[in-house]
């Protein structure tokens, strides 16, 4: 690490409204090394990378490029500096061939020789142990091959600093290994690599340096060699320090609202648990260990084939075939934009999405009463700007989440499934949400999926840990011994 860093971040901060996405971040990126940026969803990884890619400017702090302070005020400037991004969602023209994609907008010649292009692509691909065929149409490629095209684009652009945003999320294990080989080759050639991930094993096996991001701040930077086990990483990533406290008083659990018995789906292995009215069950674990299929099965987005899910005493198929709008199930999804709301419709229409049956008169849907209710909720939940005619996409993430929460609590649910309920919210809003969940507990049983251990410890009556599709263990909030072992369980070592 004796060499000077090619990119040096000094005290970088960036906020969106009241949300501190990045706070006081200092980080060095070295040539010939792989830096892993580890953090849960919403920890601020993407924001940090968008600052490096020139998509937005930091509120304060300085980025140094080869020792000189620079301002990446446009993506062109970042590209000129040799920074290249491989995004999770590929930016390729599906109908064009690999070589055409790579040279798109790159050449100033009028006539190009297809043969020569293909040959030069094949040469570089070979050099970096990639097997993609330059003459194939992109639409016919696998995800791994498409990613290789993205990497080749950057290599042809002479990018020296390559940033990979969760590159293995879309890959098979075999493809991921190929990618690691390519990364090692690039490292040998003296390129600087930033690798964003939340998969602990991968980070351990490929990275030279590891930086851990949590709630917008760097909570640790270390050399990979000095990390003894993935457990240590998990512990730092989810943390335990309490940022705010809420009054969690014990409550007598009453009748059962959810029972999962022998649930076995893709990504799930024999899940069994139950939730009673009056308790919050927090499920913790590194993302991608089965939380998503569990939620989808419980909330009726996915058919249950093996196992039985009982909601409010009814089998799930029966429950979802004639669902009632109130006093039933409320699902607060992680994906507020894509699942919980219609981005092109206004707040009133979005409010009606799950409450429409409550305002229906015969076949008609009069909206005046709904509008009054919504205006009341907007005030009570402090949704800003307070205007029911705004379209959903015009709201910030935090306000949209408050909109979804106000709607779902309005339904007086008996069972709540809350997925990352405070992700991306500022501290004050998170506290509001926590208090709302605790209050809702009086009437409901709550299944909370969270990547934030302090949230789980603060709110849950019982805590379950998921790893590789298993529910590793479930225990009471008072069980100190088990709580100590959570990071170990999350890393699959228990």
């Amino acid at each position, binding site marked *: 690490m004796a060499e000077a860093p090619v990119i040096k971040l000094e005290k970088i901060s960036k906020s969106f409204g009241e949300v501190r996405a990045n706070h006081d971040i200092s980080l060095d990126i070295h040539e010939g090394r792989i830096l892993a940026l580890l953090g849960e969803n919403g920890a601020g990884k993407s924001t940090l990378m968008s600052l490096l890619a020139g998509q937005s400017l930091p509120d304060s702090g300085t980025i140094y490029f080869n020792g000189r302070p620079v301002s990446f005020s446009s993506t062109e400037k970042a590209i000129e500096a040799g920074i290249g991004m491989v995004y999770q969602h590929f930016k390729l023209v599906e109908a064009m061939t690999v070589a055409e994609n790579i040279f798109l907008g790159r050449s100033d010649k009028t006539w190009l020789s297809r043969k020569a292009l293909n040959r030069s692509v094949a040469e570089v691909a070979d050099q970096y142990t990639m097997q993609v065929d330059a003459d194939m149409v992109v639409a016919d490629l696998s995800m791994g091959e498409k990613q290789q095209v993205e990497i080749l684009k950057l290599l042809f652009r002479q990018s020296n600093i390559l940033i990979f945003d969760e590159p293995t999320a879309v890959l098979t294990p075999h493809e991921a290994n190929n990618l690691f080989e390519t990364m090692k080759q690039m490292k040998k050639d003296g390129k600087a690599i930033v690798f964003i991930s939340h998969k602990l094993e991968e980070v351990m096996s490929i990275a030279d340096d590891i930086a851990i991001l949590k709630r917008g701040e760097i909570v640790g930077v270390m050399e990979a060699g000095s990390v003894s086990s993935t457990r240590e990483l998990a512990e730092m990533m989810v943390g335990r320090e309490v940022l705010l406290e809420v009054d969690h008083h014990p409550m007598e659990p009453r009748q059962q609202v959810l029972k999962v018995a022998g649930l076995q789906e893709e990504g799930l292995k024999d899940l069994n648990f139950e939730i009673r009215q009056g308790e919050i069950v927090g499920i913790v674990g590194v993302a991608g260990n089965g939380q998503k299929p569990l939620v989808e099965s419980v909330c009726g987005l996915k058919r249950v084939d093996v196992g039985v899910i009982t909601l409010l005493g009814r089998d799930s198929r029966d429950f979802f075939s004639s669902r009632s709008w109130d006093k039933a199930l409320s699902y607060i999804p992680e994906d507020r934009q894509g699942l919980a709301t219609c981005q092109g419709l206004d707040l009133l*229409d979005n409010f009606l999405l799950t409450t*429409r049956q409550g305002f229906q008169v015969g076949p008609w*849907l009069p909206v005046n009463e709904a509008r009054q209710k919504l205006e009341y909720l907007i005030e009570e939940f402090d949704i800003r700007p307070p205007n029911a005619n705004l379209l959903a996409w015009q709201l910030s993430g935090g306000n949209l989440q408050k909109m979804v929460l106000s709607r779902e609590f309005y339904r007086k649910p008996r069972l709540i499934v809350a997925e990352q309920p405070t992700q991306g919210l500022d501290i004050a809003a998170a506290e509001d949400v926590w208090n709302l969940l605790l209050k809702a507990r009086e009437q409901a049983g709550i299944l909370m999926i969270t990547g934030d251990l302090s949230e789980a410890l603060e709110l849950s009556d019982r805590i379950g840990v998921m790893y590789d599709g298993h529910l590793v263990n479930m225990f009471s909030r008072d069980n100190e011994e088990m709580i100590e072992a959570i990071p170990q369980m999350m890393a699959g070592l228990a």
Partner: protein
Amino acid sequence: MPLIRVVKRQEPLGWGSCLVLAAAIGLSLLLSGIVLYIGGTSPIEGIVVLFKGAFGNRYALEDAIIKATPIFLCSLGVALAFKLQVWNIGAEGQFALGAVGATWVALSLPESPSYVVLPLMIIMAAVAGGLWGLIPAVLRQKLKTNEIIVTLMMNYIAILILDYLVYGIWKDPASFGFPMTPEFSEAAIVGKIGSTNYSWGLVHCLVLGVSFWVFLKYSRLGYEIKASGDNVRAAKYAGIPYDRLVMLVMVLSGALAAWAGFLEASSTINRLQPSIMAGYGYTAIVVAWLARLNPFYIGVASFMLAGLRVGVEGLQLDLQVPAAFGGIIEGLLLLTVLAGGLFTSYRIVVTRKAHEH
């Protein structure tokens, strides 16, 4: 060197969009003029003859309204499906089946009074057209087929069914071998309003157009169509029965086109014959897009495009311009107006490199 960049507008364009629309129509006329010029006709004279022929006298106006009726109803139908992001290209076939269904009733009940036969004709037309819409919907939801292809292919089947009937079992023995059914009985014909030349079909259009608007704006199903059209995943999240909704919408969509087929057979030509298929179902798609799926604008655009069809007939007679010219203008109009849509949601910014430094 100036750089041209396209930037998304934060605020809607408002009245400027009228300007964009006018410019788009102007551009399409300019391009049409060039096509006329290449064909050896004076462009100015051609456009003038076109407009005079379309809207210049009472007969032309009446003719335009007669032609606008089926276009309007077919367009309401496809607009309903488009609202749900289901691409029903099958109005043409649903129109044909509607005409077949209505004709079947008219031929089967030659003696019945009109208060029996007309409602039955409408019901039968709607059932036939609705079924023709339901098939691609079921295939789409159950087998994940592409509705664009299925509805398009079913158009050909429907037209062949119609041909089979009028060339075969329904052919009028007194038609000297021409493929046409006997003329409907007086009771099976939707007549004219009073002493005017306008059919009661216009009133059907008015009632259906208003119902369409009320249904979408005030009913729960209308709301569910709007929500599902914006975000299918959110619709399923909210427990909206999306599969059933697609089927229902396609049935209604087919029934509206079929209603047009009924009116065309009953009111306009008083029988069934192959010339009933005049491509209204395809023009309806253009109309729906030009009108941005709004029922009022669909009315306006139907009238404009029907006028275009009438005007082209005059152009053909007076200046010997081929009939295909009408289709060319229709296509140009759609292209320029859709291209104009770019300017209503994006801004074009010209920057010079020097400014950046």
